[in-house]
């Protein structure tokens, strides 16, 4: 092994070299989450079968990230577009990638219905507790008391409810053949395993797969590296419990 190969940043094979470095801010969770996804795609050897869909919001910057066929769709509509692809081409591995606004606000009806129909696609929601795209507004996942552009005096659960628990909701409305988990950018090894199981669940034709990934937005949180990690690891996990909620593979004793 030469020194040069050791120093080369480790990039999943399915990432597109020509579009690197990617445009996510330093410390942004998207890069890490998509690296875990890329590793899972590599390890399963499915790069040529993947159709990747991304939403509006910072997730759209992944539109040319992979050497996979990709569609950047409308805000909240990535889930139905990927459902449409899958229904027309069941041999494709369809991944819908979005933020918490796309998943739990504007696209929530699609998430609920795709999950209820047990669509054989993988939906990934990057949860960074606010809207990064339009300047840091409140999201369904914003934590109580957190100040955002549209909750300048802090989120008040009395008037705006509590943070949306996406995987818990999906787990409640899917059959046992669905895979549902919440991972975090703070544990990429675990997140990669979750993506692998979720994709395998789709490959096996079992049913709906859903992974929420806790993510960071230091730019809109205005936090330095230490504060960012503290927030992801300590604050967010108080509301958003990391772990698998449904894992059909386990039941089959695999």
């Amino acid at each position, binding site marked *: 092994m030469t020194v040069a190969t050791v120093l080369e940043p480790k990039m999943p094979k399915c990432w597109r070299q020509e579009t690197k470095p990617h445009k*996510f801010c330093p410390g942004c969770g998207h890069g890490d989450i998509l690296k875990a996804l890329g590793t899972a795609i590599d390890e399963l050897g499915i790069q040529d079968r993947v159709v990747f869909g991304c939403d509006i919001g910072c997730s759209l910057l992944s539109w040319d990230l992979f050497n996979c066929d990709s569609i950047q769709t409308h805000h909240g509509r990535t889930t139905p577009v990927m459902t449409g692809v899958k229904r027309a081409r069941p041999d494709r591995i369809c991944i819908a990638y979005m933020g918490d606004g796309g998943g739990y606000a504007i696209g929530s009806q699609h998430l609920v219905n795709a999950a209820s129909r047990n669509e054989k696609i993988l939906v990934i929601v990057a949860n960074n507790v606010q809207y990064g795209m339009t*300047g840091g507004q409140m999201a369904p996942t914003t934590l109580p008391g957190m100040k955002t552009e549209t909750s300048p005096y802090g989120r008040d659960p009395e008037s705006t409810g509590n943070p949306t628990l996406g995987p818990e909701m999906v787990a409640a409305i899917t059959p046992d053949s669905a895979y549902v988990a919440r991972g975090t950018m703070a544990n990429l090894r675990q997140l990669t395993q979750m993506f692998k199981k979720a994709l395998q669940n789709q490959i096996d034709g079992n049913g709906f797969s859903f992974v929420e990934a806790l993510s960071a937005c230091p730019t809109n949180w205005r936090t330095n590296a230490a504060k960012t990690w503290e927030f992801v690891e300590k604050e967010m996990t108080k509301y958003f419990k990391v772990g698998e909620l449904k894992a059909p593979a386990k039941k089959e004793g695999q």
Partner: protein
Amino acid sequence: MTLVDLDVVEPFYTLRPIKRELEAKGMTVIAWETRDTMGLGEAGTLIRGDMLWSLHREGDIVLDIGYGVEGSKTLNLLHGVGEQKDLRINAVINASRPMTASVDDIIEHVRALGRVDALINNTHLADETDIALIREGARLVSEAAQVLNLPVEATAADEKFRGSLTEDDVLGQPIRFLTRYMPRTFW
């Protein structure tokens, strides 16, 4: 001299369109090139590593961190901001903006910003600005500064007032005459 575009509050007023012009004048400008961006306004305002490390450069560094409370918090993102002895944070006040139009409003606004070392009176109404308006701004900013126990660093005024506006007009504050580039910097 290094200029750093760290304004993630209002990305529409940006150094991008005049980046090359300023660089031709010998300044270092740390900002995106518009052609290198993607999904402006849909993908958020993106920050790059060289922006976050900008305080480690030699010479004078001017940071545009955007306005208001969210703007001032942008400083948290900079590496080494806590150890910088030379860092000076000036709150630029335009008393023609509705949220800083009275002494009380200016005080409330500046207090919300966190650390501020001095105020600058930049009261103007673009092309409609006259000396009476600048004078009134100097008075309001000065009164607010007294309550806040902060110095007034200067009054800023368009270059066209050189010769007609004097320090006597603005309570003895130093005057910084400005050449305005920003009207050309939309998006």
